[in-house]
Structures are given as structure tokens and as C-alpha cells.
């Protein structure tokens, strides 16, 4: 059955800058915002924008993502025509290969897209947190008679050098594209969201695939080729919250953004719900001596201690006299009696032993490799931090070289 538009979600990212948090799952499966995983945002945006056919391209550690998406029923994407499909790389005859780049991933799945004979393809990535009506963007694309449209966000000029920057004329038509320019000419940063006319995209991807020197990437190869050929490529201006959560610091910040007063990203929006797989747990319980302020708490949690300015995912326990400040605690983690957790991300099913301190101030002589974490302390998934252990800020608690899951002496 013909579809007007098909969305393709690039979820293959390893997310190596998220370190231990992505050691067992792809970046889009990383928990976010108390109840969600990163991929819930683009998927929910699709459903809320009436896009009912979504291909999810995976190749790194796809198990968590595959089982999370399932039939797509949680996003209302179990459809008779269309729905959500997980598309891993596959072998054809002699020359099967991994996805070599973002454009290559789509090119290898052109038969999938062709089944629906769409006029347009929406390309999304699985590592951004935002709410966006793709329908508005499609209307813009059609109005401008564009071959390609790229969603752009105004960023502060002094940060523009960190992004792919679009230089446009007065009509939002893109005149040139610069990846991380030293001297940016504009502050319109690419959000990694593209709409293409499918026939033209196929043609350009085919040409790009034939070029052995190409990195097969939308930003590096396809978009510049379109601009060079003087094709109508437009920048769709987006205003609203958008955050790349590719690093520990930005993942933590984005979580803090939803508990700020007022929140920078409003999740409690009946007109634009974010859907997710539900954990099937009872309402959370708050004990007699508990104190919870400026925080998000969800189903299955038991809070007996003090929680301030933090996000607790489902099935988290905070025992008496424990403190959780400015932190994000992933599903199933347990903060034992008297433990303190400051400015940290605590992984799934991690255990913080009694009296342990996670994210304490650096003491004299502490050596911490915080290249990935900065000031945030991270406890990996399934790690047990020992009783009374002291983890100075920036520490990454992960399994030892023998695979042991106990951390600290």
C-alpha cells in the first residue's frame, strides 16, 4: 500500500561517549526522563505526527532495542499497513556488509522503503530529545518545492563551531553547509532531521554508493552533493527544546532540564504524549521519614530516604537515611541505607552499598579518569558499589578486568 511518507530512524549508534551506559545496549535504548528510552522521543513524534511507517536501523547491540520495540504496540505502531520494523544489516549473495554510514544504511534498505512507494522519506536519529511535529516540516518541504529539507535550530554563535552549520539565503534556501566550522557564518545548526523526495534521494544514494571515496554519510556526502548540484535544499527553522544526549554530561543535563522550574522540556503534555513500554508496576510508595522535592518519581519506586532534584526511574529503592541529590537513577537500582549519591548517573539494577558515597568531593590524592564524565559520577549497569565505598566525582564504576561486578574495596 502506498504511503505518503516513511520515516527511517538511524539507531545504529554505539554511543561510545556514553561509556559504560552503552556497554550492553545501543544509545537509543538508554533510559531517559524517568519512564522513557531515548528512542521513545522520535517514535512518539512520528505517531503524533501521523507517520505510521517507521524503519529502525540497528547494528550495534540490537537485543535491548529489538526487545524494547517488539511489535510496536506501545507506540500504537502495530498497524495493518505499515508499523515499526527493526532493520539490521544483512547479507546478500556474496557481499553483505555492515552499514558503512548513515546514507548507506538507508541505501541498503531501499527495498524496504520501496514497498511503500513513498513520495517522501523522513530521516531521524536516535540520540536526540525533542518534541516536534514532522507534519509541519513536511508542509514546509512541499511549500518550498524542495528536494531536501533539513531541520535547523538556532544555537548561540559562540557554540556554533560544535555543530553542522547551514548557511541560508533570505528564503531559507541552503547555500552552503559546513561541518563544525572554525569561523561560523550562521547559527543554524542541523538537528540531524531530514526530509527527502524519495526518487531523488535514491538517485543520489546510488551515485554516492558507487563512489569508493565517499563516507556514505548524509551530512558529509549526500547533502553537499545536492547543494553542489544546485538542487533546492531548504532549512526548516525549529524553535523549541532539542538536545543531543550523546555524552554523559549532556544526558545528565537533559534529565535536569525536565525537573527545572519551569521545566525546559514539558513532558506532561496531553496533546503530545511520549509513549513507552510500560513496566507493569504498582504506584510508588513514599515512606514516613522520606523527603522528596523537585524530582520525578515513577511506578514501582520505594522511597524512604531523601531525594532532591533528581529523576528516579521505575522500581528504584531509596532506603532510610540514604540521600540522592542532583542525580539520575536508572530502573531497578537500589540505594542502600545511609548511602549518598550526588550528581551521578546510577545504571540499571546497580546497588549502592550501605553508607557508600557516590560523587563525593575529590580528596587529596584522588586520581580520577574523568575524560568521558567531567564532574558527573557514573555507576555502570548491574554494578554493586561496596558498603562504605567512596567514589569521588567523575569516577566511572564499572566491572573490573575479570568481569567482576563489585566496585570499591
Amino acid at each position, binding site marked *: 500500500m502506498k504511503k505518503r511518507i516513511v520515516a527511517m530512524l538511524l539507531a545504529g549508534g554505539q554511543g561510545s561517549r556514553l561509556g559504560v551506559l552503552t556497554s550492553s545496549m545501543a544509545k537509543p535504548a538508554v533510559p531517559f526522563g524517568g519512564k522513557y528510552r531515548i528512542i521513545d522521543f522520535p517514535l512518539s513524534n512520528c505517531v503524533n505526527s501521523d507517520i505510521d511507517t517507521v524503519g529502525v536501523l540497528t547494528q550495534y547491540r540490537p537485543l535491548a532495542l529489538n526487545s524494547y520495540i517488539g511489535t510496536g504496540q*506501545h507506540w500504537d505502531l502495530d498497524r495493518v499497513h505499515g508499523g515499526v520494523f527493526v532493520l539490521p544489516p544483512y547479507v546478500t549473495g556474496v557481499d553483505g556488509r555492515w552499514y558503512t554510514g548513515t546514507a548507506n544504511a538507508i541505501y541498503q534498505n531501499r527495498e524496504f522503503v520501496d514497498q511503500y512507494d513513498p513520495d517522501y522519506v523522513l530521516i531521524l536519529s536516535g540520540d536526540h530529545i525533542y518534541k516536534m511535529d514532522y507534519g509541519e516540516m513536511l508542509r514546509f518541504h512541499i511549500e518550498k518545492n524542495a528536494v531536501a529539507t533539513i531541520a535547523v535550530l538556532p544555537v548561540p554563535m559562540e557554540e556554533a563551531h560544535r555543530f553542522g552549520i547551514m548557511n541560508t539565503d533570505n528564503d531559507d534556501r541552503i547555500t552552503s553547509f559546513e561541518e563544525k566550522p572554525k569561523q561560523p557564518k550562521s547559527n543554524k545548526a542541523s538537528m540531524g532531521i531530514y526530509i527527502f523526495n524519495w526518487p531523488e534521494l535514491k538517485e543520489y544514494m546510488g551515485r554516492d554508493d558507487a563512489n569508493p571515496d565517499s563516507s556514505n554519510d548524509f551530512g558529509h556526502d549526500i547533502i553537499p552533493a545536492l547543494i553542489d548540484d544546485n538542487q533546492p535544499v531548504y532549512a526548516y527553522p525549529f524553535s523549541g527544546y532539542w538536545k543531543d544526549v550523546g555524552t554523559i554530561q549532556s544526558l545528565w543535563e537533559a534529565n535536569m532540564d525536565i525537573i527545572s522550574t519551569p521545566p525546559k522540556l514539558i513532558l506532561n503534555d496531553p496533546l503530545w504524549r511520549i509513549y513507552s513500554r510500560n513496566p507493569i508496576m504498582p504506584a510508588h510508595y513514599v515512606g514516613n521519614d*522520606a523527603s522528596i522535592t523537585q524530582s520525578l518519581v515513577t511506578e514501582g519506586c520505594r522511597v524512604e530516604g531523601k531525594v532532591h532534584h533528581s529523576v528516579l526511574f521505575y522500581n528504584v529503592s531509596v532506603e532510610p537515611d540514604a540521600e540522592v541529590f542532583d542525580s539520575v537513577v536508572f530502573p531497578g537500582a537500589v540505594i542502600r541505607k545511609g548511602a549518598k549519591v550526588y550528581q551521578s548517573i546510577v545504571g540499571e539494577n546497580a546497588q549502592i552499598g550501605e553508607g557508600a558515597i557516590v560523587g563525593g568531593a575529590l580528596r587529596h590524592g584522588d586520581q580520577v579518569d574523568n575524560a568521558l564524565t567531567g564532574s558527573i559520577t557514573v555507576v555502570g549497569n548491574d554494578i554493586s558499589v561496596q558498603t562504605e565505598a567512596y567514589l569521588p566525582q567523575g569516577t566511572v564504576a564499572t566491572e573490573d578486568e575479570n568481569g567482576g561486578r563489585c566496585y570499591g574495596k
Partner: protein
Amino acid sequence: MESNAFGLIYTGETNPMLRDLALSRSVAAVPFGGRYRCIDFILSDLVNTGVTSVGLIAQKNYHSLMDHLGAGKEWDLHRKREGLFVLPPFMTKENTGLYRGSIDAIRSCLGYVRRCRQQYVILTGSHTIFNMTFNDMIKQHVQSRANITILYNEVDASVPEEQNMDLRLILDGNGCVTEMEYNPFTPRSTHRSCDVLILDKLLLEYLVEEAYSHGEYDLVRDILLKKCNTLKIMGYRYDGFVARLDSVNDFFRHNLALLQSEVRDDLFNPAHPIYTKIKDEVSARYGENACVKNAMLADGCVIEGTIENSILFRGVTIQKGAVVKNSIIMQATKIGENCHLDHVILDKGVTIRDGRTLTGYDGFPIILKKGTTI
């Protein structure tokens, strides 16, 4: 594991003692425990037992119930083969569409019963809440060669203050039921039926047709009490937490019982999850001035005030300076600034404007019905 039994849930119970709570909904659809409806518990118990076919007899005011259950997807009962069958009343030449009681109702859906391929039927009511699986009970039923097995639990021996469908079993040393009492003035037994029977489906068909041909219509009165000595009826004891929604006081008391960790651990045993309709609400949000002690809160709540000893359902808003104590606050209720509420039950969608005070008493909580604004 699949079970050799199917479920048949009768939701026709009426109970005036639930007052406004069951005014526009069947007892099965009464909200319970922060995010559930009464029916979720028995339905999840059946699913957790491995039952793959459940017939649900709807009788009156079942709109709210149908809305909640949908196609049974959330209970994994939306299947090609079997699944959830909602059986509303219908009119035919020999069926008036109005049931006088459970026998009429079961008789009208004997077509469903005959089609089920399982040998046994687990026949239940819908106002009793507990978390168990029926596998051992079925095993006992088969091994003891009983005709009927009735689930019961131990209740307080004192004379009940309000009685509703109170079936007491008097057992001999082998667990065999020798006598039954229905709403006794002074109960002689502490074994109270939990409204769950297991019997062979052929026996059910026979008993129902027989009773119907005599113009009888109540399963407990006209079949169980009368057949007590001609059929072999066994009891099966359940020792976990049981809540019966017999009255507003019971509703209030059993909801607040969830604040005890033993009760929560029993009723929400993670090995047997309780399923319910998913609303995709966001997490509960605690503001700067939130002060919450000993309470259970569902998702979607926004808390700026003080809460003690209370149960909050999904999407409740408590504004600054408001104090809520010893209360049950149902879905999408809004409580304005500086309100004081104590011992109240607010049904769905109630709005309390700024500065209002409402105080009920232990034993007489104030109920505000669905959609009230004060």
C-alpha cells in the same frame, strides 16, 4: 503454562453500601490502589494462572468497565485463539436481557461455556481483591475428586457490621464443606468464601439448567446452599491479603492498607504482576514545597502541597499549601491552594477550589462523586 480451566467472571454484583462509588459503574470498575480497577486483580490472577480464555459477564452500568478492558490487550488476552470475551446481556425469544441473578446470567452465556475446550471453569465474582494463582487449587480440586471447590480465607470472628454476600463455610476435618451460612446474623465460622469456585464445566451447565427450570436465579442461595449435602464441596484456604469491597468503609480501609509494606509485597508480588489499562502518564512530579509522608502515588501527579497517609491515583494535582491526610484521591482530581482535606474519598475528576476544608471521620469518610466541584 496453559491451564485446563477457563475463567468466567460475573460482574453483576450490586452493592448499595458502596454509595456514590458504584453509582455510575459496576463494582468491578471501582478504582483501587492508585492505578487499578477492582477487576484488574481477578483478571490478572486468571492470566497469571495460565488461563487463556476468560468470559466476563457484564450486567449493568458496564460502559466504564468496557472502556477499561478494551480488547484485553493489557492483560495479554487480545488473542486470535481464545482471549477475553465480554458477554453483555442480550435479548432473545427465551432471554429477556434482564438478569434476575447470577444463574440467569450464566445461563445466557452457556454458548460461550460450551465452546471452551477446557474441562474446568473458574467461576468468580469481581468485588474481591487478592493476588494468587489457582494452579494448586485446581490440583486439589482434581485430587480430592470434589464436585465444587470454594476458595476461602480466614476473617475476624466478630459479628460483621455491614454484610454483603457473606458466605461462610463450615468444614469438617478433611476440608469438606458440611454446611454453609449466607449473611448469618452471628457467623459460626471464620471461613469466608472469596467468591471463587472451581467445578467441571459440564456440572456447571447441569446445575444452571436445573436451577433455571425451577425458576431459581441466585447461584449461592439456590445452588450452593441447597446442594451442600448432595455434592462434594471442598474448601481451599488462601492465607494472603484479601480485600472485599463490601462498603465505603471497606473501600477506604483496604486502600489505606496498601501503605503497609507487607500488604503491598503480597498484593503486588512481582512474580504475579497485576495488569491494568496503560495511560502513558509521565512520572509524578514533586515541587519545591512538596512534603509527602507515608503515601502511595501514581504517575502523572503534580505535588506542591503536603500529603500524609493517602493514596493518590493517576494525574492528581495538589497545589501549594494544600494538606491532604488519610484520604483516597482518584484520577485527575485537582486540589487548590491551601485546602485542608482529611478522611475524604474524591472520585475521578473532582475539583476542590482554593482554601476549602473537608473533614470526614474514621468510620465515615466523606465521598465526593465523580466530577464534583467544590
